[in-house]
């Protein structure tokens, strides 16, 4: 790229260039920036483990399927899938394989398109099958005979195929296939299955299908990155997944995996071992963006006002009304730097960055010789990107600050922290009462009551009944169903024994740190300004000094804890260099929050930890999306 760039400029007076870049920067910057655009997944390979290998494998798989349907194609998308697929492939890849049109799955007639194949890319959901059946039925057979295919993501499902059969269209499909998108690489150290209903299925409906997919995903990962010699786990689901993995490995016993293991340890954690953490409001930058605006598939939608570009002479006539959508990942240098900071430390980081960028732009005055000017110009695209990134994050930080400095936010956080430190968790809380009286969003109420219940190891009958009554009277009796779900999932609980073991757990695992340092953290508790996520503490203790030191507490938490070893073929045992870090894959079954991810990244970066963490999960979640997934709503309001 740089070569091309030089050719363009060789014939021009360099001094003119410097003045022209001030005014007409746009003429050439897009070309230059392509070096960044072209490899959009570069950030996946920066980490300790090159997750791009996984992405490449997934792309290969996709190409193979597309080639199976020979001739021109149109893809009909289950809209939900476009997000996750976007992380794997761009439109250009599909185009190379003769995909000419793409539509969103809708009931009624398929749009006409002069293609040989129609391929449905769908999740295995019954309601989608009905739409597909309608599409197929209304196809004009005489006019344009087109071949139909279905690609189920991530698995085919008997239920769905049966539904197609009942609808009488199953036979119309030439290919019914599955695209195993179990683990989607989100970032250099983050994999998610984006399996939204995993927690609900595991803990409410006792359906372990998601665990099977998890085990399958882990097998794929081992095929690409080598057998993981040590497996630790805590919780019933963790036990299940480990059992399945060992069983699947026996299936392949004929041949050995000859890849040098990348991961030293796998830690499987049930979400229900730590119900508390996702309920708390995340206080990292990324966590707050997620809490307030919601991050889906690595994108956030923000109110457009702050991002409107006001140009001189142009009145703000057409302010965009659609939300501004922005990608959030470590490909953006500034974001990678600040995402995991406590929000209180973000202002300082942004200001520091601003100074650096300003200084860099000032450099142009010092550029005297042709060489220096060339040097400066070559850095411009990078500086421009940095400036734009700084502008965006300054705006986002302002939006968030408006909320975090509000009284409502402060009051809510105060109550959360009281609960987490064990203050008055056995009484009806006045703040919750007031929130109900003001008819604050139901999810907020459910989050707080659940938190109180978890921090008190269940509520007294009187207290629980009181809350339930208030909620039903204020929000509607139909929420009996939701309350029952929360009870089944263990989020709301009746105190069974008189003994509340939460204080013991809190003290032993040091879940509350008095002097959490938000600016220069020395402990993971900075991510919640005092509360150290239980799940991450378990990972931390496992690395050092080991779980044996917390046997008592492990027994108090639900489900078994265990350790398994997988034999490696001789010669694949790693010879560790002095001081070389070990790598642990932490798999959260049932979801993980951004603050927990931040805490694990913090541990990876700690100089003396000796451990690097890669994080995998069934779903990236926060308290709100989590509780939402457990609610039972009228059919019309669902989805």
């Amino acid at each position: 790229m740089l070569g091309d760039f030089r050719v363009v400029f060789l014939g021009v007076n360099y001094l003119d260039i410097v003045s022209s870049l001030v005014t007409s920067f746009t003429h050439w910057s897009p070309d230059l920036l392509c070096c960044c655009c072209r490899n959009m997944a570069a950030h996946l390979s920066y980490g300790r483990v090159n997750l791009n290998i996984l992405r490449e494998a997934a792309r290969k798989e996709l190409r193979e399927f597309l080639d199976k349907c020979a001739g021109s194609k149109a893809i009909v998308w289950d809209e939900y899938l476009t997000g996750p697929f976007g992380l794997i492939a761009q439109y250009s890849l599909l185009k190379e394989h003769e995909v000419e049109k793409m539509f969103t799955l809708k009931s009624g007639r398929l749009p006409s398109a002069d293609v040989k194949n129609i391929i449905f890319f769908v999740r295995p959901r019954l309601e989608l099958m009905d739409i597909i059946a309608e599409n197929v039925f209304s196809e004009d057979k005489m006019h344009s005979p087109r071949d139909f295919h279905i690609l189920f993501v991530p698995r085919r499902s008997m239920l769905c195929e049966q539904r197609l059969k009942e609808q009488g269209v199953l036979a119309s499909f030439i290919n019914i296939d599955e695209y195993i998108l179990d683990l989607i690489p989100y970032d250099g150290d983050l994999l998610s299955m984006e399996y939204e209903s995993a927690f609900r299925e595991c803990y409410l409906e006792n359906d372990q299908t998601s665990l099977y997919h998890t085990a399958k995903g882990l097998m794929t990962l081992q095929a690409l990155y080598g057998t993981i010699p040590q497996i630790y786990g805590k919780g019933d689901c963790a036990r299940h997944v480990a059992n399945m993995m060992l069983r699947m490995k026996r299936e392949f016993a004929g041949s050995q995996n000859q890849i040098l293991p990348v991961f030293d340890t796998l830690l499987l954690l049930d979400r229900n071992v730590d119900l508390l953490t996702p309920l708390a409001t995340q206080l990292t930058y990324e966590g707050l963006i997620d809490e307030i605006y919601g991050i889906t598939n690595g994108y956030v939608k923000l109110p457009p006002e702050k991002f409107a570009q006001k140009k001189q002479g142009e009145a703000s006539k057409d302010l965009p009304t659609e939300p501004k959508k922005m990608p959030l990942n470590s490909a953006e240098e500034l974001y990678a730097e600040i995402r995991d900071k406590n929000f209180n430390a973000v202002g300082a980081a942004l200001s520091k960055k601003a100074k650096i960028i300003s200084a860099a732009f000032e450099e142009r005055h010092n550029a005297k010789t042709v060489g220096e000017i060339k040097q400066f110009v070559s850095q411009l695209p990078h500086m421009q990107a940095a400036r734009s990134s700084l502008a965006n994050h300054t705006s986002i930080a302002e939006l968030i600050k408006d909320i975090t400095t509000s009284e409502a936010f402060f009051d809510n956080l105060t109550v959360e922290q009281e609960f987490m430190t064990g203050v008055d968790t056995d009484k009806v809380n006045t703040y919750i009462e007031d929130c109900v009286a003001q008819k604050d969003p139901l999810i907020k109420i459910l989050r707080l009551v659940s938190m109180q219940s978890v921090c008190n190891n269940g509520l007294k009958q009187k207290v629980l009944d009181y809350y339930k009554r208030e909620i039903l009277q204020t929000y509607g009796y139909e929420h009996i169903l939701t309350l029952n779900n929360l009870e089944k999932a263990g989020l709301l609980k009746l105190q069974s024994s008189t003994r509340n073991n939460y204080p013991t757990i809190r003290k032993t695992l040091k879940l509350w740190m008095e002097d959490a340092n938000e600016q220069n953290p020395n402990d993971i508790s900075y991510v919640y300004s005092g509360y150290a996520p239980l799940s991450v503490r378990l990972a931390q203790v496992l690395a050092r000094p080991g779980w044996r030191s917390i046997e008592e507490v492990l027994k108090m938490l639900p489900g078994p804890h265990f350790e398994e070893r997988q034999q490696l073929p001789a010669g694949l045992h790693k010879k560790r260099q002095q001081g070389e870090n070990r790598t642990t894959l932490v798999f959260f079954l049932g979801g993980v929050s951004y603050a927990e991810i931040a805490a694990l990244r913090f541990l990876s970066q700690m100089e003396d930890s000796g451990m690097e963490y890669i994080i995998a999960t069934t779903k990236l979640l926060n308290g709100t999306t989590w509780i939402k997934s457990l609610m039972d709503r009228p059919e019309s309001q669902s989805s």
Partner: protein
Amino acid sequence: MMKSKADEEDYWNSSKFKAFTFDDEDDEFSQLKESKRAVNSIRRLVEEDDDEDEVEKVSWSGEPIGSISWSVSETAASNQRTDREPAFPKITTDTTSISRSHSGYSLSALFKGKTRGGNFQSFTDTLSDSSVRLYAPELRKPKSEYKDYISDWSPEETVQRMQQGKVVSLEKFRSLQEKLLLLDYSVSAHDGNVITAVLIYLKRTLSKEVLFRELTDRQTALRHFIHYLTESKDHRLLLELLRALGRTEDVALLQYKEHLAITDENKKRDFLKSCLSLPFSPEDSSHVQDHYTLLERQIIIEATDGQAERGGKLEIFQKFPRKASILNMPLITTLYYCCFYHYAESEGTYSSPLNIRQTFKLSEKQFFVTALAARAKLKAWSDVDSLFTSRNWLGFTRKKSPLSFQRVVDVLHKNSAPTQVLQDYVALVDDAELRITLAQKHKCHDIVINTYRDLKDRQQLLGYRAKMVRGSAEERKINELLNNSQIRWKN
């Protein structure tokens, strides 16, 4: 109820509790301003089109250009002009299709049992093994796959083949023992999809009694079966199953859930009535009873009020037309509605707030806060006032509230009460600090001034004077106080 303020302060000062503070707003977040300034100055420096300079190009409306979701809308948009001929749905006359669908499970074999054994299909399957998912090149095939040419699979092998997405026929498993083996192997494989497939087969070929009995001993399979019935909305069989299992509470909840799908209010009411006899847990039972009573009442109120509104005789409905029907609203909303439109009614009517309070055993606090909000909304300040009035045994009236006066002020303010009204209640806030904060917020100057006077805080009073309008009554009052030699100022 109110924690004494001193306690509260101790509590914060003890440093045991660290509130999440954006301390020193000035320097923390002026930094944001700083970085913004920097950004802006650079923008002036290099004026360029911002859309062009992002690392990843993003179209304004959302998707990065070239991304899949962006392309979906792009390619679809280019298609919109195509004329759609109106067409009647055509009956499919597709006869060729059965043999075409050769990948994956043979569903016809599974569900209808047409191709018994499925030998031929599985033979072709080995030739064009299209459905084996080789995700990564390094994945090796399990041992069992080398046996593909054998047609006579054991239950265990059958389950393995199903897991690999291959053609199988379950029809040949005829004895109960074989079927149960099939089920047990599928359960131990943990593949929900395979378990479901086996369960569908068992459901079709076993009597309910036998199936239910065998599932009782197989909890995992049972859960999958329940999930399957729920998903496929086979409520009749599901209820039967739950009853057979003695899971009566689940039965009750499941049945109750069906009311959500009923839109007609009379049908819904009747349905809820039929739910009353269901075996709920005691507390749920009383909630469902309340739900029924509430809807029954709402139907009556809606009919009466709708008529009154159309009749145009009642002033209140003319002045404040109803925004929505009260049907299916929560209890508290209904109470609010009744406090708004039916406040003075005697306890005998269905729409009387007092009657609602009694019937549903609402707490004093709930009733109070709802009535307060409703009357404040109507600006019926005398009603508001009388809510607080109680007489002690000497006959003096004094204001009492089940709610902190701070919250009272909050509610009144939200309903845009004027300062004259607010100050009466601000004055009743016990804690001096809090009272001053509230009074300042709501511009109740007298209260601020009097409180500073009571605190003998001359400095604060001086400071406050500076904020007053020159020559105003407030300023004069402060001056008088400051000149009053009787007061012993503490500073």
